[in-house]
């Protein structure tokens, strides 16, 4: 499965300045492992030392937050768009 992973500005430096990278994997966790293997500078940023998602990071698959799907076990399909985004105070009235 090849998916595109969109990186936030804050992580692009460690990924050679790229905003979007194409990666393979069958689950979100596997795609992220490949991401960190490809760009070792990202180690510990997206996934914490204990193997869970960094709490200040939200990961979306086609605009659906994976934390409320199957987290790192969420399956991915060819052509899916994955976005990694810092948690921020959203719209909020």
């Amino acid at each position, binding site marked *: 499965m090849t998916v595109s992973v969109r990186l*936030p500005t804050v992580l692009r430096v460690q990924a050679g300045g790229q905003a979007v990278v194409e990666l393979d994997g069958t689950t979100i966790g596997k795609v992220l492992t490949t991401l960190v293997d490809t760009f070792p500078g990202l180690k510990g940023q997206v996934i914490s030392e204990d193997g869970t998602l960094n709490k*200040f990071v939200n990961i979306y698959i086609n605009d659906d937050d994976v934390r*409320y799907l199957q987290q790192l076990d969420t399956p991915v399909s060819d052509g899916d768009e994955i976005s990694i985004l810092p*948690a*921020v105070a959203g719209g*909020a*009235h």
Partner: protein
Amino acid sequence: MKSPSFLLLPEGPTKNVARYTSVLDLIGETPIVDASALSPNPNVKIWAKLEGRNPAGSVKDRVALSLVEAAERDGILVPGKAGQVLIEPSSGNTGIALAMVCRMRGYHLKVVLPTNVSIERRQLLEVFGAEIIESPGDEGSNGAVKRARILAQEHPEWVFLYQYANPANPNAHYTHTGPEIFRDVPEITHFVAGLGTSGTLLGVGRFLKEQKSATQIWAIEPPTGEMVDGLRNLDDGYIPPIFADLGGAEILDRKIVVRPKESIEWTRRMTEIGLFVGISSGAIMAGAVRCASQIPEGESATIVTIACDDGWKYLSTGAWTDDIDTVVERAKKVIYF
């Protein structure tokens, strides 16, 4: 002889009380209207709770009153005492609602407001006498929160009610909005609302799950857009303290992003059933429609959504009248949620 229909009294519940001693008594008890004509699934009903009926025009009236009353109960604010100043970050509705309450109570309110909100939001703050402190538009609400926290630290004499961290925010929804929804639509299976401070979702969500644990709680958020570009590292990120403190991750069942184009399309579609609501309400309806389309064939469901405010404050954005691509580009630059 059959009476002409225009002479018939409207059906449905009638309020016994038509006289109120204070505008603040008009907060809450908002109507819920059947919006199922917009449902893509004939087995799924959609109801919209019209929070624009609150006196200062949004769901945030409930929060503002709850925040102020809690502070008064705790003695942090004293009605009638001179020289009391409040500071609060808001991209609009909380500020407007607080401004109304503060005006009535005699408190001076300073609102930290991102520069890129609709002109009507800014004007309404001024209508109720709030002082505006600007924060950079490209930092969005995140920037307003950051600046308000700094100012509150520098001025310990100011009262910082801090809606993102104050349990009186979700509590307004736990004690009022949630019970109203469950009373009016007891068959509810899904609750779909916008995620900002997370107050509505946490308060209503917790109440509904206590009544019926199978109720699904869906959060709708706008894309963060360019505001995250300014973050220097991930730990600059922000999770509302109430979300962490009240176990938000356990209350929510889904969280999805609805983009500006879909938000505006659904804001427009809602006029088909007579609903003139704000753009975040369109985003939430878009989320409810996605939710409805995911209900498996043969199953039925009842979704309740929140229409946070009415459309008046967004007329200047041209959301209903201008070319949609132009409006979408405009929406990317303003905070509409």
